[in-house]
C-alpha cells in the first residue's frame, strides 16, 4: 500500500514529498495527472508547484485533469487526502475543500520560514500534534492568501487546523505573512480526512534544513492511514 503523489505538468515538489514520506516510513508512488486509477493507493497527496503553469488561475486547469475525478472519489470515501501549497489551491478550486487562495496581500512571492499554530487535531494533517503547538515551516507561494465566504469554525463544515502566529504562538497582524483571513494557514473538511495547507511541511523534515517541525504533520498523515494503523 502506498501514498499516491499526484504529478501535474508543472508540479515540482513531488520528489521532496516522496522524501518526506520516506522519513515517516511511507512509500510514495508518483502518479501522472492523466492516470484515472488510484486503486492501489491508501492515501493521496497533491504536492506543491505550478500545475499547468498556474495559467488562468492556480488550480483552474488542474481541477480538470483526468486524475481529479478519482481524487474526489477517494476524498468522499474517507481516504486521507492532503494538498500542500499548489495542491491545497487545487483542492479548493475543485471544491473538495472550501475557500480559495488569492494573491498575497503585498503582491510579492514569499519564500521564508513562518510559524504556525495547531488549532485542531481532528485532521489527517494534525492528528499526532497537540493543540497550541507552534511549528516553524517554510512558506513558498504567491497566491497564499486564504479567503472564504463562510465563517469557519471548529464545528462547521470546515475546520481550521493551522494559523499563522508569532514565535510565541500569538496571532498578530505582523505574523500573518500574506493577509490570509483569520490568519488561516491550513484547513480540513469536517470529517478530517481531507486537509490542505499553504506552508511546505516537507521543507521542515530535518534539522539540517533548518527545522524538523514538519515531521509531526507527516506522522499525523501516516497515523491516519488505516492500513498503517492496523
Amino acid at each position, binding site marked *: 500500500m502506498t501514498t499516491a503523489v499526484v504529478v501535474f*505538468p*508543472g508540479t*515540482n*515538489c513531488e*520528489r*521532496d514529498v516522496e*522524501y*518526506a514520506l520516506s522519513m515517516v516510513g511511507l512509500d510514495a508512488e508518483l502518479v*501522472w495527472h492523466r492516470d484515472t486509477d488510484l486503486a492501489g493507493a491508501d492515501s493521496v497527496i497533491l504536492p506543491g*508547484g*505550478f500545475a*499547468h*503553469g*498556474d*495559467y488562468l488561475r492556480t488550480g483552474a486547469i488542474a481541477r480538470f485533469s483526468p486524475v481529479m475525478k478519482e481524487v474526489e472519489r477517494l476524498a468522499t470515501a474517507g481516504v486521507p487526502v492532503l494538498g500542500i501549497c499548489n495542491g491545497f489551491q487545487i483542492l479548493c478550486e475543485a471544491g473538495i475543500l472550501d475557500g480559495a487562495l488569492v494573491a498575497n496581500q503585498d503582491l*510579492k*512571492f*514569499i*519564500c*521564508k520560514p513562518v510559524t504556525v499554530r495547531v488549532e485542531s487535531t481532528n485532521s489527517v494533517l494534525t492528528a499526532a500534534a497537540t493543540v497550541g503547538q507552534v511549528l516553524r515551516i*517554510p512558506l*513558498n507561494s*504567491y497566491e497564499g492568501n486564504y479567503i472564504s465566504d463562510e465563517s469557519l469554525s471548529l464545528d462547521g463544515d470546515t475546520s481550521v487546523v493551522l494559523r499563522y502566529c508569532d514565535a510565541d504562538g500569538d496571532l498578530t497582524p505582523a505574523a500573518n505573512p500574506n493577509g490570509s483571513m483569520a490568519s488561516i494557514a491550513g484547513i480540513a473538511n469536517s470529517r478530517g480526512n481531507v486537509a490542505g495547507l499553504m506552508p*511546505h511541511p*516537507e*521543507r521542515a*523534515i*530535518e534539522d*539540517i*534544513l*533548518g527545522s524538523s517541525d514538519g515531521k509531526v504533520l507527516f506522522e499525523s498523515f501516516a497515523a491516519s492511514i488505516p492500513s498503517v494503523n492496523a
Partner: protein
Amino acid sequence: MTHSDTPAHIQLGMTDDEYADVVALLGRDPQAAELAMYSVMWSEHCSYKSSRIHLGRFRSNQPWVVVGPGENAGVVDLGDGWLAALRIESHNHPSFVEPHQGAATGVGGILRDIFTMGARPIGVWDAIRFGPLDDPRNRYLLEGVVSGIAGYGNAVGVPTLGGEVEFADRFSKNPLVNVMALGILKEDQLVLSAASGEGNIAILLGNATGKDGIGGASILASASFEEGDEEKRPSVQVGDPFEEKKLIEACLDLYNKGLVVAIQDLGAAGISCATSETAGNGGMGMDVNLDAVHLREPGMTPGEVLMSESQERMLAIVEPDNAENVLAVATKWEIDASVIGTVTRGPALKIYSQGNLVADVPAASLADDAPKYNRPSTRPSYLDEAWASEPVIPKIIDAADVLCELLDDPAIGDRSWISSQYDHMLFLNTVIEPGHDGSLMRIKGTEKGMAVSTDGDSLRTYLDPRRGATRIVFESALNVAVTGARPYALVDNLNFGNPENPEVMWQFTEAVEGMAWACEELDVPVVGGNVSFYNQTDGTDIYPTPVVGMLGFCDPMPQRPPRLDRAREGMSIWVIGQEPGHDFAASAYDRIINNNLGGRPHDVDGDTARRVIAATATLAYEVPVLHDISTGGLAVALAEIAFASDVGFQLDTLPHSDLFDETPLRVVAAATDDGLDTQVPHTRIGTFGGTVLDFATAGSISLDEAKAIWSNALVRRMH
C-alpha cells in the same frame, strides 16, 4: 532604426569587411537566409570575436575537469560517479528593454545550458547591477528583474539560492543581469552537442517558433544603447517557464532512456546556431527542412524561422530507430516535437524551405570562421587622477554613526526583499540559504556538499581592473570556504563597455589577466564563461564588471556548517587572516561617508590567499560562525552576525580605521574556546553578548536600533 537604402548586412549589424569575408567564403553573394545566419553567428554575442584571443589565458586542465569551456556548460567530477555542471550568462540589454521578460528568459536560457549536458538543474544565482534607487526608473528595473527571476525560476522549479547586487550611477541606463546555474548528474548521463552518425535524425523539441527575439543576439546584445532604445522591445523574447519545466522533464527522461546521441539548446540565433553547432562540432553536415518546424504564426520568412529566438526549444540528434520513442516521450510530457533534419556526411548545412535550397553553407564556418579581432588597448586616462584621489580616513571615528550610514546602504542592508521572492528551498538540498557568504547544498544520499558564491566588485575593478578581478576570485573562494568547501571550479561573466574603445579593451585584458592568475594560484579551473560587451549607453561605458561564480566542494560536508545565526552570549570573537592594511580604495567608507571613488586597491599575495582560504575551510568544521570581512569591513561583518544571532558584542579597543578597513582575505569567527586551532594569524578582539554593539573607544549603538536601519535599507526604498 533601419532604412531601406541601408545595405542588408549593415541593418543586420555586420560590417562591410565581415560581409566581404562571407562572400569570399561562399564564393558568391549570400542569399537572404544565409546572410541572416552569418550576421547572427558572427555577432559579438555568439562569436566572441573581440574576446576570443584573450580567453585562451584561462586554464582548465585540472584532472577533475570533465568538460571545459566550449560546450554548453562546464562539468567537473565530484567522485563516486557524481558530476556537476555549471555555467553563467548575462541578459543585460534585454533586461533594460523589458526587465521582467529579459531577466526571466535569462534564467530560462542558462537552465537549458545545464540540462543540455544531461544534468538536472538544482540551483540558480543572480548577480545584478542597477543605478541608484532614488531614480524611479531604477526601482522599476530592480522590481522587474527580481520579479522576472522569481516568476521564471520559481515556476520552472529550480531554486534561486543566492546572488549579489550593487548600485552605482553607471548602471542607470545599462543594468546588469547575470545568472549562474548549477546542475548535477551521474557520469553515465553526460550528453554532448556533437552530432554523429550519417542518417541520424534532428528533432526539434518544445516551444513553437515565432517571431519573438529575432535579431536578439546581433541587434540587442552586440551594440551600444542610445536614448529611446526601449523601442527594441520586439527583440526581447518572452519566457514560458511551464513549457521549460515540461522540456526539462522530457529531456531528462530521454537521457535516462538513452535515446539521444547529442542535444543542443536553441538560444541566440535559434535554429541557425543549433543546427550548425551540432553538425559542425561533430564534423558532419545536416539537411534541414524548415517546413517541418512547428510555428506559432504563419507567414514567417525562412530567415525569420532560422533567426527566431523563441524560448524553450531543444534540438535532439537521435538514431532513426529511436525517433518513434523520442516522439512518444515528447507526447507523454505534453511538448511538441518535429523531425526537421537529417545528419549528413557534410560539410554542408543545407536548409530547405518550400522546395527551395535557401541556405547552403559549410556547417562549421558559422562558428569556426567567425572573425577574431585583436582590438587596440590603451591604459585609461582616468586612472592617474582616480589613484591620486586617496581616501581620507580620520584617526578618530564615531563607529556608531558611520555604521548606521553604511547599514542604510541598499547593497549592505538586508537584501531579503530580493531573496524572499525566490524559492530557495526546493529539492531539500539547501543547508546554507541566501543571506550568507556562500550558499551550501547537500547531495542527498552522499556525504558531499557543494557551495556556490557569485561575486563582482565593479568599483574596485574600475580603480584597478587586474587587482579588482583578482580579488573577486579570492573573495569567492573565501565565501565558499566559510561553509567548509574548497574552491573547485569557476565560471566567469565579463561585463564591459564598448570593445572598440581601447580603454575598455585595456580594462578587459587586465581583468582577464588578474582573474586567470588568481585561479592559477588557487588551482581552480575556469570551466566556462560569457563575455558581454557593448554595455554602453549614450556613450558612457559601465564600470568594468567581471563576475565570477565559484563552485566549492566538500566531502564530507560539515555536520553543522558555520552560520551567521549561531553566535551566542559569551563566545569570543576572532579575526583570522591578513592584518588590516589600511585598504580603503573603493571601500564602503570612502563611497558612502566620503562620497569619493579613488585610490588604488592593494595587491594580494597568492600564497597568503591560498593559506587563508585553506585554513578557513578547515575551521568551518570546528567553529559555529565564520564570516568573510568584505564590504564595510569588520564593523559590518560583526553587525550582520549580531543581527542574525540576535546578540550584541563588546570589542576590545582597536584602531578605529580597522573597523571599516576592507583589506581582503580576512574572516571573523565566533568560537566557544579560548583558542583557535589554525596555522594562519588570528587575533581575539572581543566577546559576543548583551544587546549593544560596543566598539569600545569608537562608540556604541543598540542592537535593535542598528538592526532596524539595516532591515529597512532596501525595503524603504522599494515601497
